[in-house]
């Protein structure tokens, strides 16, 4: 197992290195940079000044030089400065992370609370009316664009409750903040809970067909105990795996949802930073997301290996 771990870890680092190169190169082939934007917000100004600003921002070196500067900066714990706010990148990103993490965890909570039990019900009652209803609901969950759902929710809130659940300033307490995040989290979580519901259902059905379940039934175990003690436990395995992948998908949903609900989290920040060509923010933020995704997948793999005796560590 030790060797396998080391190997997986090595691959992980390799992947992250590749991402850093790709994102860095992509950003620099994007037409226009921050200097253009600064000039744009100032209406046209003296083109001779452009070179000076580019030099100030370290944008005048070759792309390789710039890359080396970035990576060696990271090695020294210096992520650079945001081009837009001129504050250290850490200061810009760090306060936004907890907001997005809270939102993502709440969405994941919704996913598990609704997805798993409804999936089980759907499987146990296969082909019943309730199964069909749940399947259609879960399919619509996968079909509604997250931002549309968010817009509809906002419309409904203003029309019926005369209030709007958007962020217009730091909430006074944690409770207030969670209440504010609950609605966007539900909007994001709808999609993932639909996915988990479908997966749980098919995994359950698969397991229910297996021999040992039949054996358990033959031995006279009650239906309830078969369903929940034997089948569910085994069915959860693939669900755990997918939850890992879904964590990456959640980020996509978070981008649009944070935009609609005006939540100052990292997901929306990324879009804004791409727009304003704030390279230091985009680079480091994308790396952060990639690290989270890669690490989550790594953990899920380990969990999977630990849970499923059939997997060997030799790969």
């Amino acid at each position, binding site marked *: 197992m030790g060797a396998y771990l080391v190997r997986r870890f090595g*691959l992980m680092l*390799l*992947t*992250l290195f*590749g*991402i850093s190169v*790709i*994102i860095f190169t*992509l*950003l620099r*082939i*994007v*037409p226009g940079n921050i200097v253009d934007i600064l000039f744009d917000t100032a209406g046209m100004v003296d083109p001779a000044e452009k070179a000076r600003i580019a030099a100030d921002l370290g944008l005048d070196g070759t792309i390789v030089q710039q890359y080396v500067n970035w990576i060696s900066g990271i090695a020294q714990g210096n992520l650079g400065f945001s081009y837009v706010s001129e504050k250290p990148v850490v200061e810009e990103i760090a306060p936004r992370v907890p907001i997005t993490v809270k939102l993502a965890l709440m969405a994941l909570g919704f996913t598990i609370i609704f997805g798993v039990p409804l999936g089980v019900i759907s*499987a146990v009652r296969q082909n019943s009316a309730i199964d*069909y209803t749940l*399947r*259609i609901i879960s*399919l*619509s969950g*996968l*079909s*509604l*664009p*997250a*931002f*549309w759902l968010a*817009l*509809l929710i906002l*419309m409904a809130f*203003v*029309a019926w409750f005369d209030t709007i659940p958007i962020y217009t300033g730091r909430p006074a307490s944690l409770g207030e903040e969670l209440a504010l995040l609950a609605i966007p989290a539900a909007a994001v979580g709808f999609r993932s809970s639909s996915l988990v519901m*479908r997966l749980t*259902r*098919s995994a359950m*059905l698969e397991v229910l067909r297996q021999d040992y379940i039949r054996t358990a039934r033959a031995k006279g175990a009650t239906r309830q105990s078969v369903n929940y003690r034997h089948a569910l436990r085994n069915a959860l395995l693939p669900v755990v795996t997918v939850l890992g992948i879904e964590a*990456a*998908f959640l*980020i*996509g949903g978070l*981008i*649009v949802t944070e*935009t609609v609900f005006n939540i100052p989290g990292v997901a929306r920040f*990324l*879009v804004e930073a*791409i*727009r304003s060509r704030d390279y230091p923010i*985009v680079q480091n933020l*994308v790396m952060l*997301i*990639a690290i989270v*995704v*890669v690490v989550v*997948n790594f953990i899920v793999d380990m969990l999977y290996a630990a849970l499923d005796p059939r997997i060997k560590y030799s790969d």
Partner: protein
Amino acid sequence: MAGTQYESELVRAGARAQGAWGQALYLARQYPLGTIGAVIMAFFVIAALAADLITWRDPLATNAPLSLAAPSADLWMGADVMGRDLYSRIIYGARISLAVGIGSTILGCALGVLVGLASGYLGGWFDLLMQRIMDIMQALPLLVLALVFAAALGPSLQNTIIAISIPLVPSVARVIRSNTLALRELAFVEAAQAIGMSEWRIAARHILPNTVAPLIVLATAQLGSAILTEASLSFLGLGIPEPHPSWGRMLSETAAEYMRTAPWLVIFPGIAISAVVFGTNLLGDALRDLLDPRQRG
């Protein structure tokens, strides 16, 4: 094989399923949700193809007096702030959505198949390298990757298709690669090798057809997510630019601003996106059941 499973389903249904209609009817009865999906998809495809025939207003023509007009007998879905007929825009929008969905799926699958086949068949350092590249692509969420690509390529129809197709590559490549690996071990490939067929011919003649079923399942699943991603990109202003009637674009700032005075601007494009994705999902489910019984639910 795609054909065989489908045949076997029919065989199980017995001799009653005669002729094309009989088969279709049988499948429709067996997969009611899938049929609904197929009907929805057919509806949108026909609407997209016949857009010129079933609309009577130019989707791009602006018209001051009709600004934010409510739905009526002439303007079925009302008009947007520039007085453009929303019904025409939705119908023409089907072209854009389907073009992006199908285009990016085909492009993504083609690239994925190429990478997957090469990687599975050639193995060795090439496989290792490709696997790492696929790892890299999968480590970034679809929308994040598409966002960066869309920004890099600039907003246009082709670029949106490319931006969305790229994140699809690794999942296709993965499936093709593992199928290729599994099939390589099978007897008929060994036999082909024994009689001296070249590797590429074996790949083209034997391995590719055997991977069609999982590919179709994957492609239908991708179709829906490609359409959703296009809508999200356009919503964020990085997808299809004006004046193309993209559904996602229609839902962005302009519509949202008037969502209480003119709720139809928000409702109809949203329904269109949801319906078409719902259709692909239903159809995808049924195809998966039909073609890939191992995953049957």
